[in-house]
């Protein structure tokens, strides 16, 4: 009687451990599946911002004329004095973000951020950073001097992606003149 009971309890414990670990595995699996949907969405939102910046001039001074020397480029990256500023976050329910019309060159997007809601998720936070980079090494550290290359870094954070496990999506694009 005693030994039978011990064997039964042991078998039940083993089965419980097996079921718990399988459940954990399944939960992780479901989490990865759900996150993959949001990753697809965040990448597309980041790409949209890059596509928008691609429609702008390389530099404020390139709007009025040709630039032949790096000294003619903007010394500070961001909105120029006198241009209308945007209060962040830039939000729009009809894809009519203020940056679309108020920003005219790539570096205006330095420090810009917007919040986007999609039909299946959100709000996603999208942040942009622009810096000069050495064109021989565009993926390297930011350049301390003005160059004909500006790197746009877009960082998208979704509330549905656990940032402790998966870092926010980052997209890079280098604009050259």
């Amino acid at each position, binding site marked *: 009687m005693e030994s039978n009971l011990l064997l039964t309890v042991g078998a039940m414990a083993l089965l419980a451990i097996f079921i718990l670990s399988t459940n954990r595995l399944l939960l992780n699996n*479901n989490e990865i*599946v759900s996150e993959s949907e949001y990753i697809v969405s965040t990448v597309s*939102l980041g*790409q949209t911002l890059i596509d928008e910046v691609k*429609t702008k001039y390389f530099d404020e001074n390139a709007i009025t004329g040709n630039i032949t020397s790096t000294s003619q480029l903007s010394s500070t990256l961001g909105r120029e004095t006198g241009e209308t500023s945007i209060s962040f976050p830039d939000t729009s329910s009809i894809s009519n973000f203020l*940056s679309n019309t108020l*920003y005219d060159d790539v570096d205006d997007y330095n420090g810009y951020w917007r919040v986007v809601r*999609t*039909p299946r998720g959100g709000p996603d936070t999208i942040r942009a950073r622009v810096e000069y980079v050495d064109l021989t090494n565009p993926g390297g550290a930011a350049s301390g001097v003005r160059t004909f290359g500006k790197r746009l870094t877009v960082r998208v954070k979704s509330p549905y992606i656990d940032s402790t496990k998966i870092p926010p999506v980052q997209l890079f694009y280098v604009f050259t003149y």
Partner: protein
Amino acid sequence: MAYLLELVGSTIIGGLVILMILQLNSSILDSSTTLSMDKLSQTNLTSLVEEIEYDLRKIGFKATTGAKIITAGTNTISYRCDIDNNGTIDTVAYLMSDTTALSSTANPRDRLLYRTVNGSPSNLTSNLGVTNFRLWYYTSGGALTTTASQVRSVKFALTIEGVYPFRRQFEDTLYVSGAYIERIIQPNNLR
């Protein structure tokens, strides 16, 4: 008496074990279905996006005279271009049906997305679970417009959901897999 107790006890324990295994089996099946449906939705989405992107980039290609964009609607677009590069200008259109076109499917929101070239095929398409296809048009200054002649870039958003919603364990509502994508296209021939 002791023998009878042992028999009842072991039957209960055996029953519990069988229940636990059945539950586990159901969870595995659930997870596998979710995975398959999500993968299917995402594959459908990426395939469609590739096709739409390719087509929209061709807006105005070789159309040197006349309007390049004919209709610029919120979920309809038609434009002129030489889509097959054979020297003849074609009219390409994307249009959405309403939900009644797929009222027989399990998902009440899915609709048909038609792509036609010179009006044909007029009603040939497959149900990929499209629930939303939305278009926005921008001028060269980035302002929203609905005037076809002012359009310089086009943004489209596409939502795809699973064709077969299903009920998962411990959930009251139906689970619908899906994904959302958006893109801005700047066709070279609209610059």
